[in-house]
């Protein structure tokens, strides 16, 4: 195991997460037409992705509101991501374009409230990109493992390891 560089850091974080038993809880708002379909594809293709990600299907990322993101963190989520279509591909024309500045605003709001803004992210992908979905889920999980449990998640019970979706 390398002990320097970003890959090395993440590996260290992952192994120390195993040691401390920290399993992040990450809420993913995924749009039906692209991200959710990609996640479905990943599952059908038996691609293992992080079990930390709990998907909330929305018709379009334009539906995901700042308040939903805040409520997720207030309820104890360690991380949140919003996954939607690539620019120009949105089934509802520009819902994903509305989502982007909202996610940017929400990052500022959680930072004000005392959380690291990196706990929230927006990703864009197409329905055919099952492997990309796996990548996103794993990247967010590594990121959150490194950041540790959300400071607002005090007192909630640690989830036991139920294994990846197989």
């Amino acid at each position, binding site marked *: 195991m390398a002990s320097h560089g970003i890959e090395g850091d993440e590996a260290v974080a992952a192994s120390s997460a195993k040691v401390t038993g920290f399993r992040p809880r990450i809420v993913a708002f995924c749009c039906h037409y692209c991200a959710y379909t990609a996640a479905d594809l990943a599952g059908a293709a038996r691609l293992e992705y992080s079990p930390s990600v709990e998907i909330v299907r929305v018709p379009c990322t334009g539906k995901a509101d700042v308040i939903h993101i*805040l409520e997720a963190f207030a309820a104890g989520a360690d991380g949140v991501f919003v996954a939607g279509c690539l620019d120009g591909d949105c089934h509802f024309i520009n819902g994903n374009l509305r989502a982007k500045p909202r996610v940017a605003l929400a990052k500022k709001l959680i930072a004000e409230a005392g959380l690291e803004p990196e706990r929230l992210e927006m990703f864009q992908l197409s329905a055919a990109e099952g492997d990309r979905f796996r990548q996103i889920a794993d990247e967010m999980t590594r990121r959150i493992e490194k950041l540790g449990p959300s400071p*607002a*998640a005090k007192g909630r019970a640690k989830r036991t390891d139920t294994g990846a979706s197989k």
Partner: protein
Amino acid sequence: MIVAERKPYDEIRSLIGPYKKVLVFGCGGCVTVCATGGEKEAEVLAGQLRITDAKEGVAREYVLKTVERQCEREFLKEAQAEIEAADAVLSLACGAGVNLLSEAYPAKLSLPAMNTTFLGANDSPGAWVERCRGCGDCVLHLTGGICPVARCAKNILNGPCGGTHDGKCEVGEDVDCVWSLIVKRLQALGQMERYREIVAPKDWRPGGHGGPRKMVKEDLKV
């Protein structure tokens, strides 16, 4: 409409400091129009406050309520139960609303979540600009409908001053010299003879310098 902006988050935290049950009170009027203090924004603020409370281990309850507008006693009455049940009311209304709230419920602590700034108009999506100072003695007919009281940093009525630079005001590159705009407009309207007239010193009393103002409609008094 009246434009107000949410106070810095840390300032709001210090305002609600000791209180255990806070009514986060939105206003459906102007602050909804400029998306800073309406029902949605009240929810967002409460969401943030809950996150910070969880982080700091503070036990506090937030109640959410929004009324049509807080500058009307009739609408404040609709929130009477929530107001009376709270330790403190964190109002997202403009200053007028917070004032009336204090007058209607003098025993209850009303805290301002907003800094009320100006009378403005929506310039483009997401942007509001100051257009009126409430000077009480409108001169827009003299200036082609463009206000020098609201938009001239020096309230000049016989402008422009010598500080104009490429049509911009000396206070900032993003601020138009309103007198450059007025002159262009008067030229376009063929009203340059207005420009040649010397405008006399303003009576500032109607503008609030004579004391707090009041407007009464006799026909509406019960």
